[in-house]
């Protein structure tokens, strides 16, 4: 019981600035953990959806049916489904205008898909930079609190006649709590940032591949239509 009170008292009795630093770090830590959980859920969901959609897409289903299904689903028009939906919609819209050639059709669809892909990447990378910032800055913030606390305790020491270690020890101890908190906030943030940016990169490659493959399919389709029109 006594020890618990000691630590708590150390924090409560710290200087105003050190307390502010600690509060800031606590806030940063909580927020970064929040981001970590959100991103984890989001990326996990995106990956599982992409896998499911790819299975559906390559199982040889009718593209028009697939499009109707995706366009009808209001909640989930993200990831691969979004790319597929935008590409196919652009393709059908351009096909209404008979004059366009196969290349023009495919290029239009590809452009639409690229836009969607960029938007999707932006959505996935959203707030990852916050993790990077917390990871790199919070140790410095903690160190700042510590240095400030130690500075104050040494200044108090200057006025005393008989200086003992017992006079400065509590001050230093309380100041070091700030560094500990900074590290506590930084380590998970850095680990999570590395993990997530890797995951996002892999997803991007996957989306890009799908986009190219789908464009090829559309191009083939457009060529067939063109030939039928000419015949």
């Amino acid at each position: 019981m006594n020890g618990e009170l000691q630590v708590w008292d150390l924090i409560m009795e710290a200087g105003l600035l050190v307390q502010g630093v600690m509060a800031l770090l606590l806030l940063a830590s909580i927020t970064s953990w929040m981001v970590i959980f959100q991103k984890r859920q989001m990326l996990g969901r995106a990956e599982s959806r992409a896998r499911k959609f790819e299975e559906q897409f390559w199982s040889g289903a009718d593209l028009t049916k697939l499009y109707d299904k995706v366009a009808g689903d209001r909640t989930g028009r993200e990831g691969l489904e979004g790319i597929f939906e935008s590409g196919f919609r652009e393709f059908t819209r351009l096909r209404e205008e008979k004059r366009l050639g196969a290349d023009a059709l495919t290029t239009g669809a590809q452009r639409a898909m690229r836009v969607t892909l960029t938007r999707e990447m932006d959505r996935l990378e959203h707030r990852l930079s916050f993790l990077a910032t917390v990871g790199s800055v919070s140790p410095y913030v903690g160190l700042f609190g510590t240095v400030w606390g130690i500075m104050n305790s040494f200044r108090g020491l200057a006025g005393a006649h008989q200086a003992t270690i017992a006079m400065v020890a509590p001050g230093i101890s309380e100041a070091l709590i700030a560094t500990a908190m900074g590290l506590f906030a930084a380590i998970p943030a850095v680990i999570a940032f590395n993990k997530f940016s890797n995951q996002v990169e892999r997803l991007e490659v996957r989306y890009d591949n799908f986009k190219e493959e789908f464009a090829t399919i559309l191009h083939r389709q457009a060529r067939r239509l063109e030939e039928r029109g000419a015949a």
Partner: protein
Amino acid sequence: MMNRWISPERKQAIKDQLRALGLALAVHIGFVLLFLAGTWSWQPFEQETPPVRVTLVDMGPVVEQRREDEEAERRRQEQAEQERAEQERQREEEAERRRQEQLEQQRQEEEQRRQQELEQQRREEEERQAEEQRRAEEAERQRRAEEERRAEEERQRRAEEERRAEEERQRREEERRRVEEERRRAEEERERELEELRRQREEAQRRREEEEARMAEIAERRAAEEADRRAQEEAERLRLAEEQAAEDARRATLREEYESTIRELVRRNWNRPPTTQPGVRCDVKVVQIPGGEIIDATIVSPCNADDATRRSITAAVMRVGEFPYRGYENVFAREIVFTFRYDG
């Protein structure tokens, strides 16, 4: 009320955020609990100091009493000091005397011990000399025994060497005989091998000659057959050529007949325009299908007629409508070119 303008996606996002916040808080609370558990056994920083009790008293009479007591005490101490000094001196003298006596006794003992040690040394010396003498004699005896043994060994060695030389000689003799035998056997072997070789060579020669004879015979037979076959082939070829020539002749006559029939048919259907001059020679190309039905007719060069005549000729061909087919299957062609003639 707010739900009215919040879309389901937004609601979902907010729910996710709240869930994440809850998880983050849970993680922190968990860490704080761990931290507290880790610091449970920390020692408090203040050391507990023993309490100091203070009592106030009046000190005047006590001081007076204490001074007198101290005086008496001091005197008593001095007296005791003197007595102690006297006793100390006597004790020292006594100690001195005793030490002298002890020293004397020690010196005597020392002397006696040295005497004993000398005696001991002398005795040991004697013993050592006797020992050495004994050891020298022993060594001498051993040396002699050793010499005898060595001479014996030398003798044995020489006998051994002689025996070995003898053996060596015998062995060499044996070797020589063996080598001789070997050479003889090798010689015989070589003889036999040479014989064998010669026999084989003769055999091979004989076989080769036979083979050559057989080959020559075969070649001869084959040449004869070849000549025969060639003659037959020649005859066949000649026969075929003759047949071909006959066929060609038949075909040529058939073709001529076909053409003349066509020409006649066309002439019969021809309406001569008034401008036509005698001496018309025009090549007409006709496209027909199996069965003789005419698809198309055109004038090809050379043609020396005027336009009206040309038109009239193609019209005549088209009027014919169908060329004869039965009987002319062999000379039928999809396209045929014939020369139209008119000589007045």
